[in-house]
């Protein structure tokens, strides 16, 4: 892979696809010709089966996991994509995400959590597929649909649920809420309410990684940052600005687009001149990959390549995951605009069901084992709710504690002392 970076020397030439028609789904090659690393996995998987979809809006060939299984069997080379341990880990993570989000919905309607809550049902394959490949020191930046990213990264379910309940034991002490999940320990850098806002932050985290390696001479620093965001964000300036900067400086970052086709009620096709988002990567000099986001194994394969690329210092990648959210945009969204046929189509491709099928058919796990995991997760989630219920609400004294890292920032009061020394500050009753 060339290290010198300029789009002229870049070995992959973009745009061999018909760039114009949004509805076109004939072309078999759906990503800009990638670097050699990518040729292995996704292409094999895709070309092996015929295009199954009749939905005119979709632009990708979709290959169900079952087709992969058939293909593998027919080749009679039993090379599985995952080991048993990995399979169970992936399964458990996705079930945790699903069960947690379902519980969130319940709790919301029972009045335990408030505000805007955006659930991730249906998209678990993306979170699990990517984040389970990361180390603890790698960073993840998300959007408001961040509960499952937090869980996948390792934030305990208790901490997330408490945060949603607004309790002081939450991962952000109850001060962030559903849309602002942060964890220093697990390097989850948020949780952002405005779309696109987190992408520059992710770029900064990747910049730090490069800085540590090159300026601070921490030679083994190869931390990677993942930025998750949606299709709506891909029309936002910050997205393009960061693609440019990341490619320019070859930052160790992967831009993961969770294209679930809808930005609240705005269909991606109605908002975007060229809806094929992955094509925008090569425009900035990085590979752009399209992958079936309902299939955790495919996502994982692509993620491995992309993360590996970043770790080796070869720069960023743009990965477009075609996925779908089974619920509305948020719990306040009546979800009336989406075509029931579309919803049914994706419901049939539930990533958890697909993985379960794969595990069983490949004798990686049995029904009983998977059911045991289901049960275990149910208990974890229930425990999280109990914990959150029993936790205390933040006391008044917490109000002013985290406004400044250095509380001298509140200034000097009329009496000459720093205002933060005023006991009213520790009580939380002072006026700032």
């Amino acid at each position, binding site marked *: 892979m060339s290290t010198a970076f300029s789009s002229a020397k870049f070995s992959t030439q973009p745009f061999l696809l018909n760039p114009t028609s949004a509805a076109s789904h004939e072309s078999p090659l759906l990503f800009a010709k990638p670097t050699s690393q990518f040729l292995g996995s996704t292409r094999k998987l895709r070309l092996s089966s015929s295009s199954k979809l009749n939905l005119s809006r979709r632009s990708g060939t979709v290959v169900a996991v079952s087709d992969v299984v058939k293909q593998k069997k027919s080749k009679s080379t039993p090379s599985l994509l995952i080991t048993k341990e990995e399979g169970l880990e992936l399964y458990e993570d996705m079930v945790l995400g699903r069960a947690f989000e379902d519980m969130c919905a319940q709790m919301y309607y029972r009045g335990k959590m408030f505000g805007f809550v955006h659930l991730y049902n249906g998209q678990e394959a993306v979170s699990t597929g990517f984040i389970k490949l990361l180390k603890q020191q790698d960073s993840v930046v998300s959007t408001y649909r961040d509960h499952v990213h937090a869980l996948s990264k390792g934030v305990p379910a208790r901490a997330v649920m408490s945060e949603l309940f607004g309790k002081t034991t939450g991962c952000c002490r109850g001060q962030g809420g559903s849309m602002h999940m*942060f964890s220093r320990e697990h390097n989850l850098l948020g949780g952002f309410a405005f779309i696109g*806002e987190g992408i520059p932050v992710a770029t900064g985290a990747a910049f730090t990684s490069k800085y540590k390696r090159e300026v601070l001479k921490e030679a083994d620093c190869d931390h990677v940052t993942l930025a998750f965001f949606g299709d709506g964000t891909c029309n936002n300036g910050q997205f393009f600005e960061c693609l440019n900067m990341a490619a320019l400086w070859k930052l160790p970052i992967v831009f993961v687009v969770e294209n679930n086709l809808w930005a609240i009620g705005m269909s991606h096709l109605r908002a975007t001149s060229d809806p094929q988002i992955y094509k925008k990567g090569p425009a900035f000099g990085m590979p752009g990959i399209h992958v079936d986001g309902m299939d955790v194994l495919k996502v994982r394969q692509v993620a491995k390549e992309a993360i590996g690329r970043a770790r080796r210092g070869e720069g960023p990648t743009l990965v477009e995951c075609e996925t779908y959210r089974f619920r509305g945009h948020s719990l306040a969204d009546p979800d009336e605009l989406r075509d029931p046929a579309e919803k049914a189509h994706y419901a049939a491709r539930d990533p958890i069901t697909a993985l379960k099928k794969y595990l069983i058919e490949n004798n990686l796990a049995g029904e009983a084992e998977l059911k045991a995991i289901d049960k275990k997760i149910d208990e974890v989630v229930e425990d999280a709710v109990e914990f959150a219920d029993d936790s205390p609400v933040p006391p008044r004294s917490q109000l002013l504690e985290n*406004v400044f890292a250095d509380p001298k*920032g509140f200034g000097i009061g009329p009496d000459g002392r720093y205002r933060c020394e005023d006991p009213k500050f520790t009580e939380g009753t002072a006026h700032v």
Partner: protein
Amino acid sequence: MAAIFQGVGAAAALSSLPSNSFDSNKSVFSPRRSFSVRKGASFAVVRSDGTVNLNPKGRRTQQLIPNAVATKADSAAASSSSKPGHELLLFEALLEGLEEEMERDPRVCVMGEDVGHYGGSYKVTKGLAKKFGDLRVLDTPIAENSFTGMGIGAAMTGLRPVVEGMNMGFLLLAFNQISNNCGMLHYTSGGQFTIPIVIRGPGGVGRQLGAEHSQRLESYFQSIPGIQMVACSTPYNAKGLMKAAIRSENPVILFEHVLLYNLKERIPDEDYICNLEEAEMVRPGEHVTILTYSRMRYHVMQAAKTLVNKGYDPEVIDIRSLKPFDLYTIGNSVKKTHRVLIVEECMRTGGIGASLTAAITENFNDYLDAPIVCLSSQDVPTPYAGTLEEVTVVQPAQIVTAVEQLCQ
């Protein structure tokens, strides 16, 4: 001539021969000011009339301050010997402060447009890229929102970036990141992430730069919770504030002024910082308190000359800290003079002066003999024409008139 002595603890004393040449106004005003130096345990201010005033209540708070200024090794043992210091221009003072901090801490880095190879559009980062490399002094593409956000992400993950807005007005494009992330992220993360970022750049009304390059953003940013704002006005406080801002764990916005970059002053050789939360006593007086900051300080001092000739004794305070206000210094002054005039370059509506008026009224209403008068720029997009531009900002003549009216 004011001399500053060190109190207990710190070693070096310095005397300064403050000579300011304000080139653009072509006037030199007498340096009848004393200024405080924050070093070690306490400091003394020697007034121009010779009385020494050891700061009384002291900053008892000193124990709170984790980053005591590191003075260089105990040079002048004799507290009364004077160090000559060295003379430089304000932009060089900023550069010096930045360079020293970058040497001191390898995590300090600079990001902005043309800060690297070009050396900064106002030369504040001149030579740094050659010295520290292209990654530590990063030339960014023209994408303020994103590179400010990148600075914030870098700050969250361990670096200490200094983000330059080529002109403060450009930071309007970064408002999203400054407001949502810079200011609020420490809070919404429950204190887990700190954002030790410095955002700086030149602002203010220049010489016929046109409306968009003549903006004063301090009024827009002041409502953002979680940030501190300071404005520098002399080479001394420019270097001091730059260093303090870099060392601070809070996000700090440092406002510089386009017309002040060529001010010359003699500053100390040793390491020093200026406290971010303190105001600066420029000229002690008895009759009226004039609160100002940045470039207006010089208009005020020019007016002060006239006022002194007319028999008035104004007390001039450079508030320096735009958010939070130093209510101690300001309050003491109000309690002494009972009359307040605020002179600022900010817009009339919702500006720093408006907030300051409210703060003083809230806290010191009983001490006021007259309503607070606030002179601000007109609520007008700064015109290009020189004659019109001149009347959008406050001129010394207006200040003189205001004081005369106030003191009747």
